[in-house]
């Protein structure tokens, strides 16, 4: 299994652990391979104040060393910090690198924000384009059902200035895409709220990058020349403010749906980006969004002759199979099971989500994101738990517990009721995994292939980040293939969107992909339904 390009050698990982305290928060920070303290904190909920891109020029990111060994103060720090403060352990987080484990105190954190930095190592590397002479800035946006991911670029130099992700605030209006569409359908006013909510969230993310990573906002907004947005069809319909109910009509599900805003001028005005060409990457069909197209661009599976299968797990799980000539594409309801929503103790991949479960000397070991106290399970942790419950014979392949469970379910950590797993959660998961596995098998049948023919199985979306492949195959979510052939790309959607923003030939590749795509609607296909029922049992495919 490889996280990124298999050809690039992985440098040895050197990690230092830091304890970072503020007056009302404590967190464990792992600093890898010489990352600065600011870079590491930017990916957490405890961020330093900042107004430059980490160059040490603004002096805002003051933090104090309590103990541990760090690099000596840099020139920038000696210019920005008075000698007596330096002697007192005061440093700039953007210049500070750990040499050993240690402890830091952050007296003045940045005001709380939903936005966090993304791990950029998996994202796109751009060459730059000298031909772009004005309005050189650009933004790539992956508008997901639960999360928004975006990055900001100097298109001319090809430099990524910053990247961010956050919960999509629309989640508050309904966890499921269809629920939100329902809201869209029910009232014009609600729909307007949803449209503006998404637009406001995106521009706030961009402004967060500008204020922290450049240090000025309005002048840069005015210099943005291009903004590219990918997403699933429902999200794109909502952000465009479309008022037709076409997504409700099944005959439209397999057809291309046009998502174009009618109010582009007022949209630009609201964002204060007068020169921005706001491009909505058109979805492939009513139930296959342009996020899948972006995944395909990022993974480049259609640019090679060998068969490959790609799945992007989410509220809808989108699946594409490339057989060397044709791209078979479909989507199935993941149910919100893979994003934690709807399960009693389900959580999206956020602080406190149990992301890995193992058993050691008879004890359950629960690993959570940011090492916070467990607040529930995200998809990967739930799959681990199910696989282990099966191995322990506490759970049967039918999805039944061997013994009746109390109302709170089977609790893995007796001291924490949020680690309970209920029969209804397992039911939801069984249906989600059965529809995924059945869809994969059905597309393979259409293409005349078997799982053994696949050179690569791509798992896109943040769901794959902590996924234990053995367990995913054990419970029958993925067909059993050699693990060396599975590749994970968490931010594939954003990465592909960046390609479209920056790579002049990406549009041509995209056109080839859509030209070769065969959209398959699996609902009502008897063969698929039989596979679905056959795959409900918790066993390998």
């Amino acid at each position, binding site marked *: 299994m490889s996280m990124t390009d298999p050809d690039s050698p992985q440098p040895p990982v050197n990690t230092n652990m830091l304890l970072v305290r503020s007056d009302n928060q404590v967190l464990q920070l792992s600093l890898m391979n010489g990352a600065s303290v600011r870079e590491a904190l930017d990916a957490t909920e405890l961020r330093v104040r900042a107004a430059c891109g980490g160059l040490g020029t603004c002096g805002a990111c003051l933090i104090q060393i309590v103990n541990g060994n760090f690099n000596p103060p840099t020139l920038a720090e000696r210019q920005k910090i008075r000698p007596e403060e330096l002697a007192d352990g005061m440093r700039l987080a953007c210049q500070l690198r750990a040499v050993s484990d240690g402890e830091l105190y952050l007296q003045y954190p940045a005001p709380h924000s939903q936005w966090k930095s993304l791990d950029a190592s998996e994202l796109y590397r751009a060459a730059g384009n000298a031909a772009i002479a004005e309005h050189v800035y650009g933004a790539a946006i992956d508008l997901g059902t639960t999360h928004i991911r975006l990055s900001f670029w100097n298109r001319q130099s090809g430099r990524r200035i910053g990247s961010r992700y956050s919960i999509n605030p629309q989640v508050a209006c309904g966890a499921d895409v269809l629920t939100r569409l329902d809201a869209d359908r029910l009232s014009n006013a609600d729909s307007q709220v949803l449209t503006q909510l998404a637009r406001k969230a995106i521009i706030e993310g961009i402004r967060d990058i500008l204020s922290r990573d450049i240090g000025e906002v309005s002048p840069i907004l005015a210099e943005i020349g291009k903004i590219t947005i990918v997403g699933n069809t429902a999200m794109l319909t909502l952000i465009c403010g479309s008022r037709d109910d076409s997504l*409700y009509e099944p005959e439209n599900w397999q057809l291309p749906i046009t998502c174009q805003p009618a109010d582009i001028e007022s949209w630009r005005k609201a964002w204060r980006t007068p020169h921005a060409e706001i491009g909505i990457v058109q979805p492939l069909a009513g139930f296959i969004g342009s996020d899948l197209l972006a995944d395909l661009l990022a993974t480049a599976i259609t640019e090679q002759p060998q068969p490959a299968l790609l799945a992007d797990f989410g509220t809808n799980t989108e699946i594409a199979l490339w057989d060397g000539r044709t791209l078979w594409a479909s989507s199935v309801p993941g149910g919100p099971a893979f994003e934690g929503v709807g399960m009693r103790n389900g959580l999206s991949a956020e602080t406190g989500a149990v992301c890995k479960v193992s058993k050691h000397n008879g004890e359950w070991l629960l690993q959570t994101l940011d090492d916070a106290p467990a607040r529930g399970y995200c998809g990967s942790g739930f799959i681990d738990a199910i696989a282990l419950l099966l191995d322990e014979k506490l759970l049967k*392949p*039918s*999805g039944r517990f061997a013994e009746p469970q109390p109302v709170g379910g089977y609790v893995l950590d007796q001291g924490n009721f949020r680690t309970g797993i209920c029969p209804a959660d397992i039911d939801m998961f069984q249906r989600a995994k059965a529809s995924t596995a059945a869809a994969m098998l059905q597309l393979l049948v259409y293409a005349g292939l078997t799982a053994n023919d696949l050179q690569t199985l791509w798992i896109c979306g943040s769901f794959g980040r902590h996924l234990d492949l053995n367990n995913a195959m054990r419970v029958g979510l993925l067909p059993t293939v050699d693990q060396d052939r599975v590749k994970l790309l968490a931010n594939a959607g954003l990465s592909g969107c960046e390609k479209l923003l920056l790579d002049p030939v990406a549009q041509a590749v995209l056109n080839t992909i859509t030209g070769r795509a065969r959209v398959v609607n699996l*609902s009502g296909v*008897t063969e698929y339904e039989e596979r679905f029922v056959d795959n409900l*049992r918790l066993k390998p495919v």
Partner: protein
Amino acid sequence: MFDFYIQSYNEAVFDTDKQAALDVVNKALSDGLSPEDVVFKLVIPALETMMGRIEKDPDSNLAQHFMTAQIAADVTEKMLEKFAQPPEAVGRVIIGAAHGDLHSLGKRIVTGCLKALMVEVIDLGANISAEQFVAAAIDEQAQVIAVSAMMAHTALGEKGSLQVRALLREQGLEDKVKIAVGGAPYRFDPELYIKVGADAWAPDGVTAAKVIVQLIREVKP
């Protein structure tokens, strides 16, 4: 001896283990049981027991529902091939998901249960117009049209069972063809079936199959 088959078959169904269920049936056949006995004394009682258990058991789930119905339908189908005389069908049903509705799995459970109860089922699939339902009922001389709807707007919509009712009335077929409905919205409002012009509804697969058999008896001479 027969209790042994019942017990092990029920266990296999309870574990939703199709292969184990088929193994029990094959053992019973090779021990001299007739295919008729397998269906009427093993499969149907087990299906009813299991569905009853699922309804009452807070721990049971929809996945088990699907698998149980599928096992019953598959085993029955295999046994029917072996019947000494082709059994006389109880009646014939046209089933499908309503116009605009692509949820086709709910009706699958009903179909499985109907087949186990010796009812012929013609499944038109999903997103079926009222005209298609009625035309099929006439062509196939079916006694019941079963319309599944999983969303409020497909249950209540003008192109759903309301229009099936209108067409039956127009063509003077209301005495010959009955309408049964099912799906999530009906579970929230037990009176909803009347508003959409149906003759009956059911909350689950086995009840649906029984309700439909009842409707067939009302119509069939």
